[in-house]
């Protein structure tokens, strides 16, 4: 996992696979992927139940693209973990803030 990306996980190797897929999901307004944007809080795995639990947020709770972003995140995880159950939890606690954007993301945004 990229050291600049802070995601809580119980399986680093699988988390890297999950993030690889999630890197392909962009926030359409910002034009930046949701991993560099820091929207992914937690990715955990339950081997016995073949279940992926992903906790993520949005830049704002009232993001008009929220539905599209979460649907695409589920699709990305489903593609990465075929046959696994995907449980995506959208949370706004803690609220997203700029400190979560990766250095690469900041560079992309011109900061």
């Amino acid at each position, binding site marked *: 996992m990229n050291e600049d990306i802070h995601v809580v996980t119980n399986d680093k190797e699988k988390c890297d696979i999950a993030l690889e897929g999630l890197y*392909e*999901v*962009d926030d*359409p*307004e*910002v*034009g930046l992927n949701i991993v560099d944007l820091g929207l992914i809080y937690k990715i955990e795995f339950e081997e016995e139940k073949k279940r992926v639990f992903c*906790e993520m947020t*949005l*830049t*704002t*709770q*009232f993001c*008009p*693209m*929220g*539905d*599209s972003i*979460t*649907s*695409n*995140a*589920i*699709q*990305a995880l*489903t*593609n990465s973990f075929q046959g696994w*159950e*995907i*449980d*995506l*939890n*959208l*949370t*706004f606690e803690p609220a997203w*803030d*700029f400190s979560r*954007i990766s250095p690469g993301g*900041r560079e992309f*945004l*011109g*900061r």
Partner: protein
Amino acid sequence: MIPLSGTSNLQQTTSYKVVLPFYVYASICFLVSSVLLLLNVEIVQQHYFHPHTLAIVHTMALGWGTMMIFGASYQLLPVLIEGKLDSNLLAYISFGFTAIGIPILILGFYLFHTGWMLQLGAIFVNIGVVFYLVNVLSSIYESSKHDIHAWFIGTATIWLFSTTFFGLLLVFNFSKSLFPDNSVAYLSLHAHLGIIGWFLLLIMGVGSRLIPMFLISKYTNTKILWWIFFLINSSLVSFILLFLLNAKSSFYYISLALALLGIGLFAYYIRMAHLVRIRKNVDEQMKISIISVGQMLLPLLILLIILLVLPANKHVQIAMLYGFCIFFGWITAIILGMTFKTLPFIVWNKVYHKKAYSGKTPVPKELFNENVFHNMFLAYLSGFILFISGIIILNTILLRIGAILLLLSAVLYVYNVAIILLHKPKKI
């Protein structure tokens, strides 16, 4: 089965079917206004109570500004009031009545048919506004939070109804004496109810949430927003009281000062949001929206000049400049900018909602032609500057060139809106 346990946290957006007719209608009205302006540039030298001026002003205020705000606010209501739109059906009905009423009203003004034509148009517009009012207020009532943005939109909508209902009474006053004076004596009250109460309050309420959101700026200062809300409403209420009490013109400085303070604070709020933005590169849509904040001050400065410097016999002529700066100035500028921030998203959501992951899909800003937008922006700004210069020095050539450039900006605007609306999904 794929559980998505947190979806209840996500606000539902309004269907594009509700919103798009308003955008189409408003775009056509902008084009019609620009054509009417070009055909009638000589009216700037006459009294503002001229049938063609009234027709152009109402095309801009109702057809362009209000219809666009109706559509955008139906779409953005979940963002603004932190709840969902109460009824799609009421939204469709509001569209139906206003869409029929506006052209009848405009034709009534243009032909100065003060009888059934103006009355019918005004009645239809008012019915449409009542449906909008009920929908917005019931949506706010149903939402979980009633923060400052909900107060802005709710109060602005009540002022809108006050404006259109008073306008209806003024229309009937042409044929039946409802008021002690002729309708022309009440025009400034009717106009300011709409300009300050509806447009200014609503644009500030929406802008204070959307501009920081699009700049990716976390700047919020609810205290300042409450002050702005208080100052703008106080400005309008004091204006109404002074008008009804037939006060001397010097007393109107109170209303003017309150409005200037409110707009100054709003400009400060946007400046702060801009300073702490995370997105360094501001796109042209946002630039034109930010310019519109500066344009808000222009009409008030003109008003200050009218009150301070000019003798009373020059007030009528400068009133044209004041009105132009409002309708073709900040209201138009913010709509030109925000259309291309909101409409591409609405259409993108419709076309690519669940396809974004499955390959390279265009991003929303690729749904319109950026070059056309850039040229529209240049044509608009140069047309606006030339036209106000033409009003100041009463030069017909400048007025015509300004009007041609504004018409060109309207054509380019409609072209880009059409490109977005007709966008077909690319093969993935």
